[in-house]
């Protein structure tokens, strides 16, 4: 079966004194967009590392339970097959640049070159990704001379150009300005529309509310809450796990405390505008 199934997964790092993942159960449906949220240190990145087989293929430690990728245990996958199945964009873009390529164009082409893809195909694919991410203006630059935000875009480009079925992004926008962040989310959305499965670790909750299908809340290595984005992010007590709700949700919750009751709790900007207009017209005010 396609997708990712995680059953009773627990994990402890080889040098660790306690478990960093506790009895995780999670089904990741193919073609959907999942956001992993939670305070730093809660296990989000570790869980991504298990899903992509980095644990236990490269990092040993004490693992129990199972992770099935398309029905096959991640430990039984050949690492190079798994690398083609899944793309991973690191948290820190400063560590993702290969350091062996002299231009951004060549950096993005590097992965496809390693797979032995024909040169004309590589050129065409790299060009497509460059225009998708709007980074044509830096394509001839040396990757080492880029700003943090530019490196982050190049790191993302060099993964999505490989067109893996599953894309895992660990805070891909941490160094980006608001406009660059929106562009990345739009690019991720395009990948989703192409049928890719998306797993995203991210703190920018307004954008998660806008784009993700499901939200998984992790704290102390456990899944504290999971469900459809609009359900998880409209609950006041989701904040108990250190998650900031969107400004739109927080406003609505605050209004309720002042006895200003809207029809439903919005999580996105567009829904908030709709809900607020309805509330205002009930007060006899035209927005």
């Amino acid at each position: 079966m396609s997708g990712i199934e995680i059953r009773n997964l627990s994990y402890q790092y080889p040098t660790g004194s306690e478990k960093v993942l506790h009895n995780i159960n999670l089904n990741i449906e193919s073609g959907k967009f999942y956001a992993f949220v939670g305070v730093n240190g809660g296990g989000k990145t570790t869980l991504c590392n298990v899903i992509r087989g980095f644990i236990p293929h490269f990092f040993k430690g004490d693992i129990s339970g199972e992770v099935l990728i398309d029905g096959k245990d991640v430990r039984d996958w050949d690492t190079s097959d798994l690398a083609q199945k899944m793309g991973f964009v690191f948290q820190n873009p400063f560590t993702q640049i290969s350091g062996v390529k002299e231009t951004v164009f060549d950096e993005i082409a590097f992965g496809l070159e390693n797979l032995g893809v024909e040169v004309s195909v590589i050129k065409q694919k790299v060009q497509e990704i460059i225009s998708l991410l709007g980074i044509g203006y830096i394509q001839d630059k040396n990757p080492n001379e880029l700003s943090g935000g530019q490196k982050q875009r190049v790191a993302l480009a060099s993964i999505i150009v490989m067109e893996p079925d599953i894309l895992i992004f660990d805070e891909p926008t941490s160094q980006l300005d608001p406009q660059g962040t929106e562009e990345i989310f739009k690019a991720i959305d395009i990948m989703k529309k192409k049928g890719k499965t998306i797993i995203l670790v991210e703190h920018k909750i307004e954008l998660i509310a806008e784009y993700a299908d499901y939200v998984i809340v992790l704290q102390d290595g456990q899944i504290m809450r999971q469900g459809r984005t609009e359900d998880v992010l409209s609950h006041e007590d989701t904040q108990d796990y250190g998650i900031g709700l969107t400004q739109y949700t927080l406003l609505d919750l605050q209004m309720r405390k002042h006895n200003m009751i809207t029809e439903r709790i919005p999580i996105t900007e567009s829904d908030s505008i709709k809900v607020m207009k309805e509330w205002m017209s009930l007060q006899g005010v035209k927005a």
Partner: protein
Amino acid sequence: MSFLTVNDVTYRYPNGFTAVENVSMSFEKGESVAIIGQNGAGKTTTVKMMNGLLKPTKGDVIIGGLNTKEYTTAQIAKKVGYVFQNPDDQIFHENVKSEIRFGPKNLGFSEAKIEENVMKAAELTGIVPLLDIHPYNLPYSLKKFVTIASVIAMDTETIILDEPTAGQDSLAIKRLGSIIDSLVQEGKTIITITHDMEFVVENFERVIVMANKRVVADSTKQEIFWNHDILEEAMLKQPHISRLSHALNLNEKILNIDQMIDTLKVIR
């Protein structure tokens, strides 16, 4: 004369790339100021000139009466502390405690003063439990707090934070706000680069907007976040609640939830 002045400064990197052009800004003692703008707008280059890491190609940076061109970076470091955007550029000791001790030790503080500053900085940043850990193995977000503590321990009059909110969770962002608040209470000048508009609204009054290597606005947050021309030029957006209030035609320069609630109470 201001406490820290950047006067008509241009900076060209050795490879010929001009990162900032004719930039001027000045800061008073005890002020907290946010610098916002797109990646590549010139924010980091500008602040690096304020602690002498870079010397202007044209124009002057004057700190407490000293022109940075006439002093070494080490001398300027006594006046202005800079927390790098990438913590890995700043971390190189075997444990967090020695990392934080490095700055004040280099400035020639007494052993007693070093210990006092290190503990104070660790407490303020909430990293006391990490003091014996190797900083390089910490996650990015905690490394950032280590680098902030390292600069606070130097007890400089001015502290520059370069994107402290990047990659931080909501609790850490609150903690950053209270760190800035404490430092300002002590009379320090805090200059912060950030992409988080809600963080700006919560923690700063004055906002400097940079775009295309220049300063395009320097004003209060109300003026900046309700000036659509400036935001468009800098390719920035209003804070979320301002956007909502704009869409609802509320005709108030609303920036946050509390202000929105006050306005809605009047409607009702």
